[in-house]
């Protein structure tokens, strides 16, 4: 579904992604883990079109999408839940969700999607007319995911959905991701929280300073002594 080959990205003159290749197949949940500053968010931003690749190829269902404008990439069905949630804090929950469905043309599908989001996140229904900035961090994360689901994503990019959340909230967010996975939504998950990411995902890529150093089946990696040492606190 998504095929990235030899991607390089730089900020001004400093290259931060040095030839990354990865792929995501239909229905898969793929995790991309690594330390702070490894370039995980940069990769997602490039996939969404917020950043332009320096070189390399990004294919989505066989079509090149590297360097396309952001709104064209969203039209193709690649939708991102950005780092730090990035909700529209001065607007209501309702308006945030409407903006998630900005490109939606079918009123019926909007209503169906909205029902589905309300089932996943009942809190959003309760707070529908409230200003989004007044919600807690965890609720805002629910809103950010709900908003993304309203745009009929074919591939969901999640940038550290557990960042800054309490352990309880983190658990809830990962439960939602499990539900979405069961529904067959294809996801690429960026996480610093390596253990949860490895546990939930089918396959994992480990990124170190802009290069993929390890990739493979998540169940295998979770038991790998080297991975344990470096990312799981050496247990």
């Amino acid at each position, binding site marked *: 579904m998504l095929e990235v080959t030899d991607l390089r990205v730089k900020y001004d003159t400093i290259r931060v992604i040095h030839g990354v290749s990865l792929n995501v197949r239909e229905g898969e949940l793929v995790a991309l883990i690594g330390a702070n500053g490894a370039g995980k968010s940069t990769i997602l931003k490039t996939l969404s*079109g917020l950043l332009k690749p320096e070189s390399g190829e990004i294919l989505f269902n066989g079509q090149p999408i590297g360097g396309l404008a952001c709104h064209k990439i969203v*039209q193709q069905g690649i939708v991102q839940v950005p780092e730090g949630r990035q*909700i*529209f804090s001065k607007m209501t929950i309702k308006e945030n969700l409407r903006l*998630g469905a*900005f*490109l939606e043309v079918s009123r019926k599908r909007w209503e169906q999607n909205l029902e589905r989001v309300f089932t996943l996140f009942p809190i959003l229904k309760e707070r529908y007319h409230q200003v989004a900035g007044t919600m807690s961090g965890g609720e805002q994360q629910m809103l950010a995911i709900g908003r993304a689901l309203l745009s009929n994503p074919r591939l969901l990019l999640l940038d550290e959905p557990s960042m800054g959340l309490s352990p309880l909230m983190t658990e809830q967010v990962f439960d939602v991701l499990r539900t979405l996975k069961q529904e067959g939504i294809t996801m690429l998950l960026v996480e610093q929280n390596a253990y949860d990411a490895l546990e939930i995902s089918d396959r994992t890529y480990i990124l170190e300073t802009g290069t993929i150093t390890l990739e493979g089946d998540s169940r295998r990696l979770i038991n790998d002594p080297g991975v344990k040492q470096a990312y799981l606190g050496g247990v």
Partner: protein
Amino acid sequence: MDTLYVLSQLVNGLKLGSVYAMVAIGYSIVYGILRLINFAHGDIMTVAVYTILSLVTIFGLPLWMSIGASVVMAVVVGLIAERTAYRPLRAAGEETTLVSSLAVSIFLQNLMMMIFSPQRKAFHLPENLTFLHNFNGIRLSTMNIITFIAVIVILVILTFVIKRTRVGMAMRACSDNMDASRLMGININHVVVIAFIIGSSLAALSGLMLAGEYKTIDPMMGFVPGLKAFCAAVLGGIGSLGGAVLGGFVLGVAEMLFAGLMPTEITPYRDAFVFVVLILVLMVRPNGILGSREGGRS
């Protein structure tokens, strides 16, 4: 000093204020989305006014047609400035585009001087627009009344567009969070272009009103009213359209009361007085009269 005199100064203030309000709305719409203080906004008014003058005097076009053409011209100039001077610098930050807008302003002033000479020119509206109606001693021209009503109508329409329509929702989203808006599939360049179209059209109309009031025009005429309109927008709470209109009226009334009631030795400092008012208000309410407490930057 009789009450009629004070009252007529008040009305004069509302007249001036409605022009400021009209310019301030345009300022506010562009600022709300791009955080761009567009110093060239006032000079777009000048371009529009010269367009009207040339079309009427040189080509003999009827006034209404020339006004339409001046709006188109203002929009074209505004969009060229956006495309060439602001968009390429958008990533560089607000300070950079601010300096760039000063450059556009100076460029437009000098372009007008080259084409039309720096001399003042007479600008007369037809008599049916300048006809003075007498309301118990307070005199208002037809144009003044039209201006005042136009400001209110435009405020109502734009408020509706921004609150209730899809494009308005996209504008508010961009104003709230630009990157998130892009991730929702909003083409932000479209939104910016729409903001400039609205802003420039309003600049054209306010240019007409200003010129009609002063009856003379010159290539520098737009700059100071542009600055004052920016002050009006900041005073009212920049980003809020109601605030822009309120700020325009407050500033206009303050300026005319100052000019009319103070001793003649200090009335030439009315421009300075306007900026002092701005400073004083911002000291008490840093985000303007109607500005929100959080997130607002002036």
